[in-house]
């Protein structure tokens, strides 16, 4: 997505500030981004053109190629955030804190999107925008948990305080996910509903391939987004730190004058 726009200007003596990267892009992420775009195009082609309409779901199956990969990768992101949180508490490095928070934020966006796409899929399939089936319900609760995580991130500018608070909330994300999923699945199974989002176990051939490819491509996209988000957070912290240092300097000079 950036490859068309990012330009690294040549280093020259009278432009020292451009010696470093001019944004959050880098050689590696440009390659990743290009691969992701190609992958998306391929999945879109397969989803819309090459694969047939599903025998049960009709054409709405083409939304499953978005819905399932996005929620799967969001879960992956939560696992990364949990690992990052634990690592932060153990190693106390800013790097881990930002890994955790970037993953959590991208996952939050993906979770929210999952809900929206799920509702759009639901209307033609069930006739209603929402049902309290296990998967949608769990996703909603997890989305709210991730919003809580975001709120905690904003409570302090001190990186250590912020990191500790986020890490405690973050390391509990995975246990929360497991508990929520378990409880909601038991609950819905009591009512012996047909599992509404049952993926046809006989899904095979090109449909299966498309789905798996879509998951892979979404994972690439997640990495791209998370790396950029990490770098953005890194820059934000640097800027905040300078502002703080400047403010303290101003204060000091006031006093000495």
């Amino acid at each position, binding site marked *: 997505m950036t490859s068309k726009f990012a330009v690294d200007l040549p280093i020259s003596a009278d432009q020292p500030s451009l010696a470093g990267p001019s944004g959050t892009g880098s050689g590696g992420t440009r390659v990743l981004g290009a691969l992701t775009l190609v992958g998306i195009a391929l999945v879109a082609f397969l989803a819309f053109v090459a694969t047939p309409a599903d025998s049960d779901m009709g054409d709405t199956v083409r939304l499953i190629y978005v819905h399932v990969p996005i929620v799967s990768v969001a879960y992956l992101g939560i696992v990364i955030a949990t690992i990052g949180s634990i690592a932060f508490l153990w190693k106390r490095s800013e790097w881990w804190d930002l890994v955790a928070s970037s993953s959590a934020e991208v996952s939050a966006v993906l979770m929210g999107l999952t809900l929206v796409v799920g509702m759009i899929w639901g209307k033609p399939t069930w006739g209603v925008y929402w049902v309290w089936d296990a998967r949608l319900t769990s996703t909603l609760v997890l989305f709210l*948990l991730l919003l809580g995580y975001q709120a905690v991130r904003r*409570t302090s500018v001190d990186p250590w305080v912020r990191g500790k608070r986020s890490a405690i909330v973050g390391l*509990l994300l995975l246990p929360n996910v497991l508990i929520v999923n378990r409880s909601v699945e038991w609950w819905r199974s009591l009512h012996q509903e047909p599992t509404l989002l049952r993926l046809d176990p006989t899904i095979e051939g090109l449909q299966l391939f498309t789905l798996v490819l879509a998951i892979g491509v979404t994972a690439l996209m997640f990495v791209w987004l998370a790396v950029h988000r990490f770098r953005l957070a890194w820059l934000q912290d640097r800027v905040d730190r300078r502002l703080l240092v400047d403010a303290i300097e101003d204060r000091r000079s006031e006093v000495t004058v």
Partner: protein
Amino acid sequence: MFRDAALVAGKDLRIELRSRVAINQVLPLAVLLLVLFAFALDPDTGLLVRATPGLFWIATVLCGLLAVQRAFAVETADGVTDGLRLSALDTGGLFLGKAAAVALQLIVLQALLLAGVVVLYDAAPSGWLMLVVTCGTATAGIAAAGTLFGVLAAGVRVRETLLPLLLLPVLAPVLLAATRAFEAAFEGRSSEGWPWVGLLAAFALVYIVAGLFGFGALLEES
């Protein structure tokens, strides 16, 4: 650690007994909730009685939120948190003590709520063992999670809105499981409630462990 826990729990409960905030405010609030539910769910339709387990637990969770907020308000009010930090109290014990105090208040609340629903909603609970065990495990979880997130929110200026935002999604499975267990008990099929009790116990375990380890780190900031 347990001695420190008893010390802290005793202190919190004594503060409570003297100030009577929970008795004067939280308990009436619980009764008020029961009344409001009755207005919302028209007793004549039989909906109220069928919804009793769920309403009981909603009331418990909401009042639990208040109890936790109160537990930390007493600390931050006079800058007591510095005192707590500087004292030689073991932070694990501190956590257990505060959580125990909250749990005890919740148990009293639940007893009142049970009496309330029997009287006001004409509910006829059965399966008392299941009810008691459910209350015990659910309360342990609510108190542990509440205390952990409570100390996190205590250090923050927007604590009144942050705590519910953090705690309510976390407690959603507790609400779910406890309600199902209560339903099983009320409808005379208590044995079906045990898996839910298992879930409640697992939840409580996770949050007690998390609290023992995390409470100290979070206390430094409040």
